């Protein structure tokens, strides 16, 4: 995949990774904004139906990310920023799951005040994603070693 000049290889994987991110982070941010109190007219219960969009985005990115890692293992694994990115993603997904069960797992979340935990999770989620995106972008600029032979 690394050597193929075909647009179908490396660029396609990057494109998938970007689109996956758009839907995963985008949907998550929209939900976080709602939980934080914006557009509060949106009922909470139906939002659960958007969770599969995020999970699809996550798996597309996990797989495309794995492909990128296999193509350039040394570049990623010798770069501490890569580990920071992964850690932030793990935390962001854990936050999402907790939000999912705490707020959206309630069979009737509407008509009662949001659990305090919900707002904290939503705010944290936003920060974590900003961090993960920044770390991901910085990977292109901070790598120390491109290939294993160097």
């Amino acid at each position, binding site marked *: 995949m690394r050597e193929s000049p075909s647009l179908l290889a490396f*660029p396609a994987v990057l494109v998938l990774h970007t689109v996956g991110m758009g839907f995963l982070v985008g949907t998550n941010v929209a939900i976080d904004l709602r939980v934080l109190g914006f557009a509060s007219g*949106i009922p909470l219960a*139906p939002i659960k139906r958007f969770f599969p969009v995020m999970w699809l985005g996550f798996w597309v990115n996990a797989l495309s990310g794995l492909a990128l890692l296999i193509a350039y293992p040394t570049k990623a694994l010798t770069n501490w920023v890569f580990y920071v990115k992964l850690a932030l993603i793990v935390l962001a997904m854990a936050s999402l799951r907790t939000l999912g069960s705490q707020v959206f797992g309630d069979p009737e979340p509407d008509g009662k005040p949001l659990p305090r935990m919900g707002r904290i999770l939503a705010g944290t989620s936003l920060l974590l994603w900003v961090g993960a995106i920044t770390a991901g972008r910085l990977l292109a600029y901070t790598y120390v070693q491109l290939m294993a032979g160097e």
Partner: protein
Amino acid sequence: MNHYVWVWPASESLHFFGLSLLIGTVGLLDLRMLGMAKMLPLAPLHRLIPWGILGFIINLTTGILFFAGNPFRYIHNIAFAFKLLFIAVAGVNVLVFYLAVFRRTEALGPGEDTPLPAKIIAAVSLFLWVAVMCLGRLITFMDHTL
């Protein structure tokens, strides 16, 4: 732009966050119009759109910064040309949405289906913005193609 080493990566990160804001709000509205999460009433969901507009403004600004930093690179790049074209078409689609179907769509409540014209506009919107993301990512591979 080219004087401070951190400006470009910072702008890129902002550009990605901006696109997430746009896709997350406009995209979810499009998905609802296409029938997902049907118990959501449309007007409240539409209240998230200003955040999408914020995302668009962030991306327009960082986009102008990118272009200003290296205009020669972008004008000779076919992915960039098509990206701008698709954004323009998406803009026309937005106009059509507000002029033709918004009033009727906005009134829809939980469980109500959107009329076919609205569905077409939503599908076109989703397609165009996903295409814009793809083309944006391909810019780096299409230098000297125009």
